[in-house]
């Protein structure tokens, strides 16, 4: 579904910005985890909210997913969602300063911590390219161990025709069995701001 939220030129600019931003993010995360991070080339898509579960199911083949959401605001407002497969990020417990035997609430906290690192590095990277400051709200668990279709159950209050610009990136660590996907979602009413920011970026070339 194409909602034509961005012009082709703006779309390319966002793709480019995301690409550079992820390079920076990859270096920051590698610094934190002390390990090489594999990042996919970010993909920019437009999708209606109703198509999100299907889009997420494409990204991670696992049957049960866990997702963390985190709001970001500044010049552009939106929400980032980090989606984990069935193993979550238990393998990163040691790297993040947790003991080896994780209790349930600790597992949630670990998810929130890891998501926060990924979201702040990636969005920080993009914001830097746009010369904008970005702030973050506290992350929270969106859904825990649910099938892909259930990820957005609690967001059904949003109007179905809410369009979103999705920037998706996949992560993989070299020495740990860990993978997740990051979705940056910009609501339709934030489009004016992102278009202006992209136009400013394009004007600098």
């Amino acid at each position: 579904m194409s909602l034509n939220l961005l012009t082709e030129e703006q779309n390319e600019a966002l793709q480019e910005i995301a690409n550079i931003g992820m390079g920076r993010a990859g270096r920051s995360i590698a610094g934190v985890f002390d390990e090489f991070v594999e990042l996919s080339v970010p993909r920019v898509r437009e999708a209606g909210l109703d198509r999100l579960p299907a889009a997420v199911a494409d990204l991670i083949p696992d049957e049960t997913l866990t997702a963390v959401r985190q709001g970001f605001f500044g010049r552009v407002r939106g929400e980032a969602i980090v989606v984990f497969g069935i193993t979550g990020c238990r393998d990163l417990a040691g790297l993040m300063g947790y003991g080896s035997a994780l209790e349930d609430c600790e597992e949630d906290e670990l998810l929130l911590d890891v998501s926060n690192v990924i979201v702040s590095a990636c969005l920080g990277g993009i914001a830097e390219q746009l010369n904008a400051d970005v702030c973050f709200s506290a992350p929270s668990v969106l859904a825990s161990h649910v099938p892909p279709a259930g990820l957005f159950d609690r967001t059904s209050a949003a109007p179905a025709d809410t369009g979103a610009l999705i920037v998706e990136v996949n992560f993989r660590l070299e020495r740990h069995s860990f993978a997740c996907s990051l979705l940056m979602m910009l609501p339709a009413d934030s489009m004016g701001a992102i278009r202006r920011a992209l136009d400013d970026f394009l004007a600098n070339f």
Partner: protein
Amino acid sequence: MERFEPDMTAGQRLIDMVDVGVFAVDRALCVRSWNAFMVAHSGLGRQAAIGRSIFDLFSDLPRGWLEKKFERVFALGAPSFTSWEQRPWLFRIPHNRPITGGVDCMQQDTRFIPLKDEHGEAVLVLVCVFDVTDAALLHRRLAETVSALEAERSEQQTLIARLAEAQEQLIQSEKLAAIGQLAAGVAHEINNPVGFVMSNFGALERYIERAFALIAAYDRQLDQLPPAVQADMAQMKADIDYDFMADDARSLVAESRDGLERVKRIVSDLRDFSRVGETEWQWASLHNCLDSTLNVVMNEIKYKAQVVKDYGDLPQIECMPFQLNQVFLNLLVNAAHAIDGQGAITLRTRLEGDSVVVQFSDTGCGMPPEVVKRIFDPFFTTKPVGKGTGLGLSVTHSIVGRHRGSIAVDSTPGQGTTFTLRLPLRQTSA
């Protein structure tokens, strides 16, 4: 609390006034600023706090974990968070509900915000401690209410399920009652014609025997008749195949009698099943009942099984002996039928408290669980069509029920089956 400090900047005063714990730490995690909220709630004055490691100020901090967290904030230059939902508190600080709270210390959300220098390097981390005790308490109370409601709901669902089950049972027992009435009616209707057919048949049997005897007597006098007549008679006998007929008539009669006996047995099973019959309580010895029943069925058993009697010392019990005979008969016949080839049937009797226990164990083929589940159902049978009515164990069950006893079955396919009968010593509650 410390007094107003005149050398504070406007920004510092503002930070002092907010109702949030705010303090800054450097890379060594030593405190560099400490706002009034922290002074008031932690009980540590600025002089006491500033310059000291947070691990000295709060001895129960999770050190390794928190050091990593600060490291990430410095390295990424991005904020980090904790939430009361996962970690009710990080800094042990008393809360504002010492009387009405019921939690041991301030429930808190925290934020770790990097403070950057002109090169964009994070040099300090500002720690903000939000007091969320009230919200957390409310949330927990709500969660408790929700879980209580959910428990109640699941209980209701269990009750609904039980109700449905009870209704199912009711329908089942109504069905059984209807079958019982039907069976009683059918039994009654069949019983009369079978009765007179049997008695007529007895007479008919005698008449046939006498007729054949008469013909035999004639035959002995046959040589006294003229040769032509003798030839005629021989011809006639050959024409009707007299020798075969005489032989076959006797076996037809025997088979028919057997069939009638079977009808009579089925009718009497049906009558028992529908509780028509003798219901007189007597004091009787179970061993006598067992022995007399064994005598009746020995013909069916003796070629297949050796009967082992393991009788205990039993007093007489109050029972309906004729009905119990029926029970023993059913169990013994079933045991014999279960045995393929040669086996053993063990009868074990014991006195246990206020009841007697009678066990029938066979070394037969046993039953799979799905059969065991249904054996007491009326009309359920594993025997070929015409061999069993499917009423034997159902009758057994209802007779045992009338005696306020119980019957249990334990079966292993390929190894055998044990029926355990438990009957009370006396029926009258007085």
